[in-house]
């Protein structure tokens, strides 16, 4: 009662089967990763919605042309990497790539019908975290986005950024230290002067 039996019964050639399977695979990858990729590209491209859309579209177009057996085992990292490279290209072309994430568009997207007073405190916290993330050095910022924003593993991030796994680990750890200090520093700005 599974799909293979079913298709076999219709005497379809192996080539046809593979092609149908390929399309299904492409679509499933697309459905699974397009959202995360757009989110990633959007941040990489400093909140330019259109560029992010183009970037992701092109990454998938390239995936369509790539032989499946070469990418299948690591398709997530492959797509993020392709997106990243494409974003870099776009940045070079249009000199618009920044790591600023605190754009108006972003704020609009995350605040829906919320009573402003009700969440004033946490909105403030949110804004601060956001700001501190965007202040991180480029590579640290990137690994934070990939690990904590997209949930990629260290290994996948290593592939995307072409760094070693332990380097990714170090970068992320440094980013965490920085963010902790930054947040703690703002919290206890008065009392902790001597420590910093």
């Amino acid at each position: 009662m599974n799909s293979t039996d079913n298709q076999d019964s219709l005497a379809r050639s192996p080539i046809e089967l593979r092609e149908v399977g390929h399309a299904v695979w492409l679509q499933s990858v697309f459905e699974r990763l397009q959202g995360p990729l757009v989110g990633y590209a959007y941040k990489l491209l400093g909140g330019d919605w259109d560029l992010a859309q183009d970037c992701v579209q092109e990454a998938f177009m390239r995936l369509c042309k790539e032989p499946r057996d070469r990418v299948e085992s690591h398709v997530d990292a492959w797509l993020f990497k392709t997106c990243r490279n494409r974003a870099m290209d776009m940045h070079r072309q249009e000199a618009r790539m920044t790591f600023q994430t605190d754009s108006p568009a972003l704020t609009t997207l995350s605040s829906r019908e919320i009573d402003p007073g009700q969440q004033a405190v946490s909105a403030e916290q949110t804004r601060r975290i956001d700001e501190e993330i965007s202040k991180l050095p480029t590579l640290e910022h990137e690994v934070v986005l990939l690990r904590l924003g997209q949930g990629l593993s260290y290994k996948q991030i290593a592939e995307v950024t072409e760094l070693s796994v332990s380097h990714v680990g170090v970068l992320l750890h440094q980013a965490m230290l920085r963010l902790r200090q930054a947040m703690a520093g703002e919290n206890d700005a008065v009392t902790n002067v001597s420590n910093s």
Partner: protein
Amino acid sequence: MQPKKSEITDPNIEAWELTAYALNELDAESRARLEKHLESNPESRAELKEIESIASAIQRQLSTVAPSMALDPARTKNLLDTMSLESSQGRDAIGDPHASKASSVDRTSTPSRTGWTFSRAAVTALCALAATVLIALMVAPESLHGLRKQIGMSGPMESHVAVASESDFATKQESKSNASVTVDEKAQPAFGPGTSGATDETENRYSSTLGGVTAEASPAEGANPKDQEILLEDLIRDNGSEGQRSLDLAAGEVTAEGDALEEGLKQKDSELRAKSFGVNPPDITSNDSIGVPSDEYVREGMKGRFEVGGTVNGDLGMNGKAVLENETKLATLAETATPIPSSGPAALPALTLNSKRNELAAGGASGGGRGGLPGGGIGGPVPDMLPGGGGGRTNAIAPPFGNADVRAIRGYSPGSVGRSGTSAEGRTSYDYAETSVDGRSDGKAQAFPDELRANVPSLRMPPTTPSGDRFDELIESPFTEVASAPLSTFSIDVDTASYTKLRQYLVENHSLPTPGSLRIEELINYFDYDYQGPADNSPFAAHLRLTDCPWNKDHQLVRVAIQAKKVDTENRPASNLVFLIDVSGSMAAANKLPLVKRTLSLLASQVRENDRVAIVVYAGAAGCVLPSTPGSKKDAILASIQELQSGGSTNGGQGIELAYRIAKDNFVPGGINRVILCTDGDFNVGVTGTDQLVTMMQENAKSNVFLTCLGYGIGNYNDSMMEQISDKGNGTYAMVDNELEARRIMIEQLSGTLMTVAKDVKIQVEFNPARVASYRLLGYENRRLATADFDNDRKDAGEIGAGHRVTALYEIVSVGKEGVIPANVELRYGAEKQENVKDGAAKDADPVSSHTDEWLYLKIRSKQPEATESTKQEFVLRDKQQALLAREQMDLDWAVSVAEFGLLLRQSPLAPGIDWNRMLSRAQECIGNDPYRRECWSMMQQAKQLSDRK
């Protein structure tokens, strides 16, 4: 600025590994090393804690933004086209990637479009053909009979053979004519050849009293359990001359005219009033609850007592059974409005004289009878807004441990006068003097026939949260003693709305939801669990598991996991979909109509050539904006979706009628026929009463058109309405709060969303009194069914989609640990109860019974999507459990953690040892790579902070 260096001095540990540990990125070896280090270094532990908290804060921040990200529809479509093209035309046809931008702007003039359409048509036609063959095999009505035989032989299923209480002539004849099925059933392997008699004993597995009584009465027929049932029925019929009539009428499915119906009920009402213990019926007329007739429970209770006592002799037992059956008929009567059988109440006093225990049983029975009947009294124009409307409320405040027999389910929200309990069920038992009010009012409420319900002017409004959302308050069910009620019956629920709602509260509103609004089962069922599907053609596989109860170390949890068979998305049959979209003014908000459009675009992108899509909108009036259109005209479908605009008031009723008409006109036999309702549930024009809408859905559900309710938005949101509509309309109900959720429903779980593999799925668990002293089901408060409903094929229950899974958790107290539950208040019978338990245990230890290693016995009844008869599957939880794989253990722990999370949010008084921190750390262990669990975990943390702040 350079970050401050960590103070780790251990040469084996690198500082960065702390972060890696917090993020679960270390391999086992480094992990062990680090854990060892952590044990001796409090500073590192503190640092780790800090890292974890900042990591989750960042995660939360990044994830609140990410969900709304997606490729726009034009680009999406363009890419999907390219992908299809890729497979059927080869790579040469793909142009330069940069050209795609142009094609995305001009969606109709891509040069390769014609070629694509053609070749894709060929591919999908083949797929469709395959799918059609598959589906014809699976669900076509004409092949059902053959299939059932086949199933009967190959798997642990059996055809539905009605129990005496439900049997009508039609069913009986059928069970006779299905002789071959009967044979299969006997041969079915669930319990091995030695116990087939017990297996066939439909009502009760762990006690032979019922069968014994019958056997005594009919020694000649004893060999065939089916005949026993029939004979029993004959005897009952002889016992009460009116009973025959009621049975006849039930068989003929007579729907009496409203007047006659009401008259019949009134007659019963007055008779029962005469029997009632001086309680004033108007006290209890305010309830129009739906749910479970309490007299069903009473019957169950009586049976339990007969069995446990073991003192009832054959004749009396028969008598008792007859009373029982007459009580059943009372219940049936309440439904079909036939005159009351006089022998039922008359038989009660006789029984009463016999022994104390029987007296109690009789008391219960008459309580149930009373309960069952006055329901007719409110068939008239009694508004359900009477203040002080009691049943639900009385139940709602019943002490959790005080009386295990009072089952308060959906009760009365103290905050709103205007609403009586939507579904209150309860029953009197040992001490009817004390709890009789419950029994009566509930019974009445329950027995109030559905057919009449629409006549009651519906003025109630569910309670409202500060945000304007309306929901039904759920009351947790307390522990039930196995000795008195060994059977627990409920309808499955694969809805997830409650979880999504919770997420909205936590993530967007930064507030905790109202405790009473949480449906724990929907939290648990939101997540994926890797349960193995059925190996054969059965609709379900079940996985039972016993585990520790984290919030009470003396209790245990039983996980009941049910996995529906999986169907690949591409193998789904042809679909006939009707989108029914609320475009009223209230839908204008950014998280409503725009998100609806996005959801529909996602679904439209998945539509194939042999599918059909129609769009109906409703606001002040309903209209069809897209007649049923084949999937090949995707452009037209997408264009219609994009043009949707909001404005006006909401006439939901008219829209529902129109949508169902279109769905029926385009019905695909054996295919997916489904109305997809997208709304915020704020119906305010036309048919607006929940009851009327529910009736309307019930009518329409008979046409085998299924329903998906998608709820949108926060504020002004009517959860209660949505839940009820989907319950009654053969539907599922999910909330869509963001794009990610839309994607989850429409892409990841598409086959489950669209393709119903079984309907009216009911679960009955029988606990072995030799092992289990008492139990309580976590969640499913509004899904309880009466014991007899399990075998009643006319009783509606939940639907399940392809690949869906249902997880239910029972908290149980095993025999010998009863002392842990605070003693029941009625000490008068406390001693006797203890005795009963011992009796039960002794009886089960008898060598005749071979079930001592069993904890419980699970039965699942379900129907194929277009069938009217159910099939049954059975499973047993035994002492010996196979070791779990790591991921299975993670699934189990996760389900338990989510249940604990739910109990914490509900501030459950029944889980005294509950603890946020322990729950959080256990949950963290089983996140794995699942992004939804990860999201939930950060919600858990946030919820803890919010509740700490309180």
